[in-house]
């Protein structure tokens, strides 16, 4: 068989909106876990946000964290169970806003974990409010006239910040809007998981994503808008990879 659904991705109907990037990433993660033979050795941490129910779809052990705290949970779990594959799956509100401290410190402690970071520049679950990653000029429920520096400050490039931390091993920014991008994103997740199992430090895989519901666009238009606007500010590619040096 050339193509199949990963066994770990169960048949529960997903709550994600049609067109949302979560669905694609939800397929890549279990594919990588299966390919690495880590099905019975994975402990995953879900966030608060759209991916709060990630545990309903991917059949590994999950802990559901409080908003922003997933990297703290993961730090403890990995230290207490060093031979387990431990990763968090978080959105931009969870990771880059309320959980900034947990994110930065877990990464800089060189915890042997991977953070999968879905950046769609908006709070999806609560109905489309401004996120730390919302682009300037972008309209949301809490910046209905567009994000302005004088009112809201600048969007946060937390992935660039993470790349500057001594504790991080592999920091990359990917997307899943084309087949080629999906393949690159999968390789990035695999590399991050492998580095975390090899004890090479912390790993951050950002996936620049669409939120067509929050952005109030069709899925096709959201992908185009992402290419034209998001990638301008959030450049795709590896920001740091010291894994092969260590």
């Amino acid at each position: 068989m050339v193509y199949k659904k990963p066994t770990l991705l169960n048949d529960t109907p997903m709550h994600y909106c049609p067109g949302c990037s979560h669905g694609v990433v939800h397929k890549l993660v279990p594919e990588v876990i299966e390919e690495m033979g880590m099905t019975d050795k994975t402990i995953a941490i879900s966030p608060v946000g759209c991916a709060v129910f990630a545990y309903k779809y991917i059949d590994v052990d999950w802990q559901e964290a409080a908003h922003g705290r997933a990297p703290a949970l993961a730090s403890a779990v990995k230290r207490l169970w060093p031979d387990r594959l431990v990763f968090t799956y978080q959105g931009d509100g969870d990771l880059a806003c309320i959980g900034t401290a947990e994110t930065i410190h877990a990464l800089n402690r060189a915890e042997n974990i991977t953070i999968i970071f879905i950046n769609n520049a908006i709070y999806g679950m609560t109905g489309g409010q401004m996120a730390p990653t919302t682009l300037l000029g972008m309209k949301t429920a809490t910046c209905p006239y567009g994000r302005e520096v004088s009112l809201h400050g600048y969007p946060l490039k937390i992935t660039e910040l993470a790349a500057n931390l001594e504790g991080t091993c592999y920091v990359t920014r990917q997307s899943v809007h084309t087949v080629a991008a999906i393949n690159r994103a999968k390789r990035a997740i695999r590399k991050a998981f492998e580095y975390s199992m090899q004890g090479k430090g912390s790993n951050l895989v950002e996936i620049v994503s669409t939120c067509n519901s929050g952005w109030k666009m069709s899925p096709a238009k959201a992908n185009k808008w992402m290419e034209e606007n998001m990638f301008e500010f959030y450049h795709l590619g590896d920001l740091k990879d010291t894994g092969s040096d260590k």
Partner: protein
Amino acid sequence: MADQEITLMKGNEAIAHAAIRCGCDGYFGYPITPQSEVLETLAEQKPWETTGMVVLQAESEVSSINMVYGGAASGKKVMTSSSSPGVSLMQEGISYMAGAELPALIVNVMRGGPGLGTIQPSQSDYFQACKGGGHGDYHLIVLAPASVQEMADFVDLAFTLAFRYRNPAMILADGAIGQMMEKLVLPPFKPRRTEEEIIKECPWATTGRVGGRKPNIITSLELRSEEMEIINNRIQAKYREIEAKEVRFEEFMLDDADYAIVAFGSAARIAKKSIEIARSQGIKVGLLRPITLWPFPTEEIKKLAGKVKGILSLEINAGQMVEDIRLAVEGKVPVRHFGRLGGIIPDPDEVVDVLKRSF
């Protein structure tokens, strides 16, 4: 026997040694006066080289308690310690642990508040510890040590109760018990559980799907109201069972008492001295010391109200436990409160004066 050796140390140090000895898997904390010696002692003892216990200084109390959540959710025996302002920061995580029914130990070495308050001893977090503290309907199992020996002994007891009921437990001490040095016998060494033992003992824990079992999920979330009510009712039934089985208290000179003091922790030690002074003046007073603050010894205090003419709640706060005493007494006898605030410890003589004035 080496284990029976009497040693001298601070209450905070006793907590650290007891944690290592009872097979604790992980400690996650953040410095705050007057409890920093717990983390300092652990760092000095390096248990990761002996028992394999993980010790980690987190970036905040918010992070420490969430590390405890993660560790507890994976079946490990994990703990944190802090003092009042830090414990306030932990309330979110504690509520999540109560909701997800996770066993863990939280130590609060109380200092005076509100706000940044003082670094001197206080018992002003009684409400926070015993009435939930964070959001939602929940209780912690709360143990109140009155000596350095009990600081050490209650670590293992708290873990035992926490795992028995899958509920977070708290040791509610204060700056006096944490900082004072006293002789004690440290508990004997107990090995940490093996991973196989943890997997067997905690089949609910997220240990990885060992042996291909079904996924385990630790969450406090349930959006369907009917299901959430069922979960809440189950948790409440657990609390009723704890109330029925786990009340612990000490009685002191109550047999012939005309009056009773109810006091916990440091205040109970002051009460004993006050009782000695009062009895030398012909006033027959005794003490009931709740050891578990939750579950509270309601029935015992109810019985006490049938025997004495008045009850004094001696607390190092503005009057918190006195509310639970009044609920137990149901107006049968007068119940008064006396306490000092701001980190001041009541003097035994002033307690005797209060007793004379009150009844």
